[in-house]
């Protein structure tokens, strides 16, 4: 696992280039998918093609073997990397080849085929310009689509000038490209074997799709007489027509291009003549096309992933990189930290867990905070945060630090949670901490902030001493509410205001404001004592504990919902639990009832205003200028716009942030290891809120974590938007 020093070093060295590249791709994605009117429909179609293909995979592979052989090629199904490499080596050896030219292929990285061939004395040349930079520099890819994204133009120029000593030093991107193309062009012309990957392979015709921009994959196939394609078994789809949604989605989702320059649809062996470029006598049409084709399909753990109910979705991945580009943490550190042996970014965890094992996946899995910004970006709708949660849970079960078990009372994991680290247990059992904190406040706050305490917390729990700790309130929201005597005559609606952990113990004022706003709009409110949602243990991969919380919440809220009460939630991450995760944690009926009847507080206010309630009963904004940062999970659910609409309707002048995440993400920003990454992510938000049009605005944010992060980043006080509306 990258430690704090390694992360700090990557932030300084590779961070700037990775940020510029990924954020450019991410902006391009938003713009490009907005131009595609059928976007959601195509995503659903792509998803269902992949579900069907993985379900029927053995049958499709059989069909593909027949079509490939009918076409005159060979299909080899390799069990693992060594098996695949042995086969490729034998093909290269039979051809008596001294050079293999390659186009970009993550699967070939996965099996380390370059090393295997090099050991046989074969010259293996990467022809994708980014891959070639890495081959020259002897570095690993930092991104699944743009492998050298961590390198700036200047650093590539330095590399080439030092290695190749050109007559005139290379400087511009054009000069570097021309130099690489000319150098590689010579090497391609003389090569015997061309090796490609495949983005998709259709079982009906044996056609492979290669999605590229440089033209090197085309040359790799056209200029050689032996074509070896290396692909994971999951790349097989039923028919040529099934390629359609993927071709429309893959470039837009990844690099933000509507389509890449070339989508090669090859049904090998291709009919293009085999050429010797020295031949100045024979016209192209008189040359033969005697070409061999070998499709090497690789299992290497994939068939076991197919049998794994939690990891199976990983096989739907089309390696577009949307999850990397939309990830606030990835944008800062890149794939050298947020990646395993081969695969990086959010979905990298699923791939590495299935292919390499939990040890490798566990090395970078904690960089996923579950912010969920990748979920809507994924063109095949993979629940990437859930895969990360499951892998974290499995890693916890591998834990070996049982010696801490009873060190901190109350933090003992449920028997089924394995042995998460003490830090994970502390954050996972935050409900216990918060209850104790409120019961003993302000002494608890005072004790916690003492220097000795912070040193101990950093040493034992890895809680960074630079972070301010939450201030527990002596009187919880539930206690405050119980002491009130307010009746709403002829209520418009009846609701349960869910006293989430933070609103109940820390951000109590926003809870009071929510109650007052709802009552002002003629809503009858109750605030019963309810268990915390399970978000905290879920985020630590303590699934069994999270399930226990969810069951208790469903038991308490179920009867209220049955009686016709809506559930109103202040904390967006808990609302997202009800909407996105509870169907995996409690029985379907309970999950459906809660999800259908729960609302984020400003979403609920929006609904009231839409249905006849009047803004006259709320505090008027009168043109007050506010800067609003929505919450990552709230935005994934499409609920940012409701807050903005309500504030504007009440007369506020609203400016919104457009960063993917604030960087705090629950416990993440408190952890010593990740403090610097968290602050680097937050810096982008700080810059936005310190820009000319924002610096005089009052700051509001929906999530507890966002408020904590903004408190640390800015000098201005922060509030939840509902506090702006609370009547005097």
């Amino acid at each position, binding site marked *: 696992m990258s430690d704090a020093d390694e992360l700090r070093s990557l932030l300084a060295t590779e961070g700037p280039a990775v940020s510029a590249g990924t954020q450019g791709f991410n902006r391009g994605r938003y713009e490009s998918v907005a131009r595609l009117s059928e976007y959601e429909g195509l995503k659903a179609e792509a998803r269902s093609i992949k579900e069907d293909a993985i379900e029927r995979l053995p049958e499709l592979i059989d069909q593909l073997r027949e079509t490939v052989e*009918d*076409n005159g090629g060979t299909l080899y199904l390799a069990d693992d990397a060594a098996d695949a490499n042995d086969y490729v080596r034998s093909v290269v050896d039979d051809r008596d080849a001294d050079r293999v030219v390659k186009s970009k292929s993550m699967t070939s990285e996965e099996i380390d085929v370059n090393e295997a061939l090099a050991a046989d004395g074969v010259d293996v040349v990467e022809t*994708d*310009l*980014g891959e070639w*930079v890495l081959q020259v520099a002897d570095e690993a890819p930092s991104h699944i689509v743009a492998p050298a994204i961590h*390198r*700036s*133009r*200047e650093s*590539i120029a330095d590399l080439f000038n030092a290695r190749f000593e050109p007559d005139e030093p290379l400087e*511009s*991107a*054009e000069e*570097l*490209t021309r130099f690489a*193309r000319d150098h590689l062009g010579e090497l*391609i*012309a003389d090569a015997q074997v061309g090796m490609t990957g495949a983005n998709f392979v259709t079982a*009906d*015709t044996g*056609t492979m799709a290669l999605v590229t*921009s*440089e*033209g*090197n994959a*085309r*040359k790799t196939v*056209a200029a050689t007489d032996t074509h070896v394609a290396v692909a994971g078994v999951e790349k097989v789809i039923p*028919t*040529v*027509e099934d*390629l*359609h949604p993927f*071709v*429309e989605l893959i470039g837009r989702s990844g690099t933000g291009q509507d*389509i890449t*320059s*070339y*989508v*090669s*649809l*090859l*049904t090998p062996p*291709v*009919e*293009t*003549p085999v*050429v010797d*470029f*020295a*031949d*100045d*006598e*024979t*016209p*192209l*049409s008189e*040359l033969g*096309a005697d070409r061999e084709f070998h499709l090497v399909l690789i299992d290497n753990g994939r068939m076991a992933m197919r049998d794994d109910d939690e990891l199976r979705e990983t096989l739907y991945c089309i390696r577009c990189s949307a999850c990397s580009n939309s990830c606030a943490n990835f944008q800062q550190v890149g794939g050298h930290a947020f990646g395993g042996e081969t695969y990086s970014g959010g979905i990298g965890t699923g791939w590495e867990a299935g292919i390499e094992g939990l040890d490798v996946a566990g090395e970078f899995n904690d960089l996923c905070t579950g912010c969920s910004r990748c979920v809507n970006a994924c063109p095949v709708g993979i629940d990437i945060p859930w895969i990360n949660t499951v892998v974290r849970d499995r890693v916890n079960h591998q834990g070996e630090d049982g010696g801490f078990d009873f060190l901190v009372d109350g933090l003992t994991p449920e028997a089924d949670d394995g042995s998460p680290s003490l830090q994970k247990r502390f954050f996972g059992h935050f409900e216990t901490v918060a209850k104790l904190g409120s019961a003993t406040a302000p002494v608890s706050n005072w004790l916690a902030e003492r220097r000795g305490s912070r040193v101990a917390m950093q040493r034992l729990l890895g809680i960074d001493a630079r972070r301010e700790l939450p201030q527990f309130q002596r009187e919880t929201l539930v206690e405050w509410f119980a002491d009130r005597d307010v009746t709403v005559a002829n209520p418009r609606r009846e609701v349960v205001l869910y006293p989430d952990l933070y609103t109940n113990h820390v951000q109590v004022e926003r809870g009071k404001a929510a109650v007052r706003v709802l009552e002002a709009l003629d809503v009858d409110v109750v605030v019963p004592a309810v268990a915390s949602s399970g978000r905290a243990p879920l985020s630590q991969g303590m699934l069994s504990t999270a399930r226990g919380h969810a069951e208790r919440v469903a038991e308490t809220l179920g009867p209220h919902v049955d009686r016709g009460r809506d559930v109103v939630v202040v904390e967006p991450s808990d609302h997202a639990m009800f909407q996105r995760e509870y169907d995996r944690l409690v029985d379907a009926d309970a999950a459906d009832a809660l999800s259908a009847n729960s609302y984020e507080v400003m979403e609920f206010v929006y609904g009231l205003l839409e249905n006849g309630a009047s803004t006259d009963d709320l505090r008027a904004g009168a043109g007050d200028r506010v800067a609003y940062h929505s919450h990552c999970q709230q935005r994934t659910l499409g609920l940012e716009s409701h807050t903005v609409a309500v504030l504007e309707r009440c007369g506020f002048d609203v400016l919104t942030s457009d960063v993917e995440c604030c960087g705090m993400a629950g416990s993440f920003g408190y952890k010593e290891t990740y403090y610097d990454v968290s602050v680097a992510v937050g810096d982008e938000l700080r810059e936005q809120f310190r820009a000319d049009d924002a610096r005089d605005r009052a700051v509001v944010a929906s999530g507890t974590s966002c408020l904590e992060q903004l408190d640390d980043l800015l000098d201005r006080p922060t509030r939840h938007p509902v506090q702006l509306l609370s009547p005097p």
Partner: protein
Amino acid sequence: MSASPYDALASALSSLDVPCERTTPAAFAETLAAHLREPAVGVALDGVNASLSGTDVAVDPTPATLRTAETGVTPASFAIADYGSVVVPSTPSGTELVSLFVDRHVAVVDEADVLPGMEAAFDRFGEEFRASASSGIVATGPSATADMGALVRGAHGPSEVRVIVVEETDE
């Protein structure tokens, strides 16, 4: 009224900075001349209602001639209007090579073969590939790379693309 497939194609190509011109079979040679940078090579325009005879294009070149050519003229099986794409078939005559190992690719397509979008394109690919196990490249604009720290047009493939659409005749 929605734009004709040609207009949609020309508009998409324009945003890719790819010049696109419509001509008749009779005026084809003259139209093409303006898009050639010498030396120019080509493959016979099979399947397209136009011919390279009477042009300055060396048809069916040797590999060595191809390697030194600036411009390559090829037919396109069809075009995809929404995206500004042309489909370059892989043929025994060397269409793939002539479109790829040059700095400027001129693609010639019949107006009747300008399809509206990707769905129609893949219906056609499905029929063709199942019938004849053929191959084609959906080519959209020039080759490009961002791997050297900025977007550069002209990576391994052509740095320039031109598209000539041949009108249907009334005969």
